[in-house]
């Protein structure tokens, strides 16, 4: 795996009329599993579309996999996969035909395309449905098909826009496991754009937050969590008041959350002091989750700063 940057932008701007959708975005992103977050209408989707050349850039430069996005469109797109949020299949085709066709559009010879199509459909867990017309597919099957067409040509980077949208919990888990394996097991960089912070936390190691057309945060998830170390969400079977009183004695701020958990700011590097406190009051924790909602808090904080600066 080369250490080459997968995404490089310099002062990237995109203007719609008199509205700046992207304002001076400069990023250098290494390969990995990247979470792309941002409020609706913030420029997150526009950013992806500019990189994929679905929208022309107004000014600045962008490089994808080391090549200029405007100049070498076809070459780049041979090695890039994309799953849009909305349905985008060609009606009247069977699933395997569609994926074969998509592979051919990326330059694979027909025999290889057909072979890869079926391999990818196996990978995403599609069985005999692949021979039926796509119009008859359920949401889960359509999402799998989208993923299959995005990776059939063995791309180096895949852009996924809400891949688990509309799926039931089982379907969500299956798609997310597949997406997770793309980077961890097969070295394909994944850029996941989603509003489900829970999913992003599970899969991604790097986080980019875009709001109001600017990059607010670009850091690894580990760093973001480390910054929020010192707080933990404690799940106890009862006796919350005793826990709160004990925390008050040690002057640790604590708060009872709506779901019945207790959030404690223990301000230490590990959970051992908190365990000591629990041992003292003879209260066994069912769970202790460190820096809970780290991503959500980073997100909210970043937005607040951006609003204040605006």
């Amino acid at each position: 795996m080369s250490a080459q940057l997968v995404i490089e932008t310099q002062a990237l701007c995109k203007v719609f009329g008199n509205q700046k959708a992207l304002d001076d975005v400069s990023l250098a992103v290494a390969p990995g599993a990247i979470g792309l977050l941002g409020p609706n209408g913030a420029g997150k989707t526009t950013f992806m579309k500019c990189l994929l050349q679905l929208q022309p850039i107004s000014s600045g430069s962008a490089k994808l996999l080391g090549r200029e996005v405007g100049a070498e469109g076809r070459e780049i797109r041979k090695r890039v996969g994309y799953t849009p949020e909305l349905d985008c299949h060609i009606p009247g085709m069977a699933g395997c035909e569609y994926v074969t066709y998509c592979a051919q559009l990326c330059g694979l010879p027909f025999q290889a395309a057909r072979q890869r199509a079926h391999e990818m459909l196996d990978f995403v867990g599609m069985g005999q449905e692949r021979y039926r017309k796509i119009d008859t597919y359920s949401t889960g099957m359509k999402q799998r098909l989208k993923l299959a067409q995005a990776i059939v040509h063995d791309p180096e980077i895949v852009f996924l826009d809400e891949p688990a949208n509309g799926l039931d919990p089982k379907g969500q888990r299956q798609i997310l496991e597949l997406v997770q394996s793309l980077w961890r097991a097969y070295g394909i960089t994944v850029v996941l754009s989603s509003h489900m912070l829970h999913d992003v936390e599970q899969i991604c190691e790097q986080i980019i937050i875009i709001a109001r057309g600017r990059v607010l945060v670009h850091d690894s998830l580990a760093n973001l969590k480390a910054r929020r170390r010192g707080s933990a969400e404690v799940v106890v079977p009862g006796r919350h008041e005793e826990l709160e009183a004990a925390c008050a004695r040690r002057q640790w701020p604590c708060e009872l959350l709506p779901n019945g958990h207790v959030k404690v700011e223990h301000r230490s590097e590990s959970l051992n002091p908190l365990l000591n406190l629990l041992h003292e009051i003879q209260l066994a924790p069912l769970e202790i989750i460190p820096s809970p909602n780290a991503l959500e808090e980073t997100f909210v904080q970043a937005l607040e700063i951006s609003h204040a600066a605006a």
Partner: protein
Amino acid sequence: MNPVIQARELSRWYGMVMGLNNVSFDIAPGLTGLVGPNGAGKSTLIQIITGQLQPSAGSLTVFGRTPWNNPALLQRIGFCPEHDAVPGDLRPLDWLGGLARLSGLDAGEIPGRCEAMLDTVKLPREHWSKTMGQYSKGMKQRVKLAQGLLHQPDLLVLDEPMNGLDPMGRQEIAGLLAERAAGGASILISSHILAELESLCRNILILNWGRILASGSQKEIRGDLKNWSEELSIQCDDPEKLARHLFDAGILLGFDLEPAAGLLCIRVKDAPSFYPAWTGLLLGSGVTVHAIRSQSRSLQNIFQKVTA
């Protein structure tokens, strides 16, 4: 406490196709989550509750009365559907105003109420003058919620209420719903996002293949599952040392080690006798603990076990 919704041997068939098959349950006041795979019968149930469908057999009552053909009862129910069902060529205030009049609200109050409702769902004022056809998914969702809340219903039924909302929006709406529930309204949320339901709802109703698999609070359901072995994962500096210590203490049913990630996953059979000694065991092992997570407590896990 009187249940808000009661179903007794409720069935709904579409010819040979089964929508709901002989379900009986009670939904208590407060926040309840409705979960189930696609095709489980959630939409059918919601349509019966909101008076859009009649049962084929059995009964369903809301506040003690049948919703079908019952405008007086429907006045107390608010519904926010999943689909983008807002008319594209109207402005939000016009639409809400029209609906308010249909609900029989006092004409003088209507403009003020509609504006207040749009503020409550945090639809920015600059968008109020646009027609709803130009709205994004998230904005349409907020207007739908506003129409559901407009007549201060006692029961609010929401089908995928967070669809299309960004994390900030989800937080805002979750807060709004928690507020309403605290104020005495009952809320039934159907959603696929288990993480959100877990934090928001105390009670859960799990459907699959037109049948009820579980109903009650998350705690009750968890307690009722047979062969429930507590599964915990502990993140620490020296998982092997901790494993050895716990093994020597004789409480382990089985364990998995991931030394690279610093994770130790353990399975414990007898929870009541395990927990009282738990903190002592952890501290006694001498390792630095960073996280304790339960693999088996989450709603995701309950759902998996129940629908397996």
